């Protein structure tokens, strides 16, 4: 990946790299701001379990660490929604909707909910914060989900399902 011939570069990055690298830095900056102020390393997927603690007595969700962090995780998530809305209004001026089928969103979402909680994190917790921490655990998780996701996405494409 490092030594890409120039002629292939535009094929690998048809939309350039600016939006991706700059957007990524903002993602990291959001984490860094919270971290420097509070010492908390905020991931996005614990919100699922911690929020369930408001409405469910299942012991798994009533763990002290979920009950103690559930309030700020709601605020963090509302912030994410708001930040994306600010971007959309400032740069596009109109809302955008996906063409991915509802059953893929629902089924994929279900597996994401299961997998991120069993695996102790998601793309932000393991992929950004864990990799940034040079954590063996996180790098193992990322390598696993990347490889599996690439295989599944290619299979879906091969079966003629699009987008």
């Amino acid at each position, binding site marked *: 990946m490092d030594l890409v011939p120039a002629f292939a570069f535009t094929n690998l990055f048809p939309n350039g790299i600016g939006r991706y690298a700059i957007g990524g830095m903002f993602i990291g900056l959001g984490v860094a701001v919270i971290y420097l102020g509070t010492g908390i390393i905020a991931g996005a997927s614990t919100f*699922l379990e911690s929020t369930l603690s408001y409405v469910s007595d299942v012991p798994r969700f009533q763990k002290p660490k979920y009950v103690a962090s559930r309030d700020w995780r709601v605020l963090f998530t509302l912030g994410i929604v*708001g930040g994306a809305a600010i971007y959309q209004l400032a740069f596009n001026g109109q809302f955008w909707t996906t063409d991915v089928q509802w059953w893929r969103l629902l089924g*994929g*979402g279900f597996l994401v909910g299961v997998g991120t909680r069993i695996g102790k994190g998601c793309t932000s917790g393991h992929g950004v914060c864990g990799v940034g921490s040079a954590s063996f655990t996180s790098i193992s998780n990322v390598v696993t989900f990347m490889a599996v996701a690439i295989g599944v996405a290619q299979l879906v494409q091969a079966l003629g399902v699009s987008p």
Partner: protein
Amino acid sequence: MSGESKSRGPLFNVLIVVGGLIFGFGLGFSHMARPEVVLNFLQFEDFGLLFVMGGAAVVTGVTFAVASRSSGRAPLTGKAYTRRLKSFDRNVLIGGGIFGVGWGLSGICPGAAYASLGIGNYPILFAIGGMFAGAYAQGLWRKHSVSDRPVSSEAD
């Protein structure tokens, strides 16, 4: 559970929201809030996602490295600065694999799904509903799990 008291003042809450706003803005700007763009990466049509994760990890990596080497403490909580180091076990790989199937099928992960709502993508509610259902199902299914090491208890 030091520093996890219920009320840590308005400034704490403001900072969390501001951090979330910046995080969400980045997800919007990088187009990760669009499942199609993630699927384009997984299908080898646009490798830009590597720069998103890489750019974010460089920023957090430098921040964590510098702060965790200092003896300072977080001003709003008094917490020590640590890195995100979770214990490794089989679940890390099993969970990663299950997440990978879901991510590859839908192009959606938790943070990006919340951001997707922000860009007006209302069908993403299917994914968010699915994620809650999945998180609930694993909670019902798993027994009292042993808590992770306290040092990592607040990471994602």
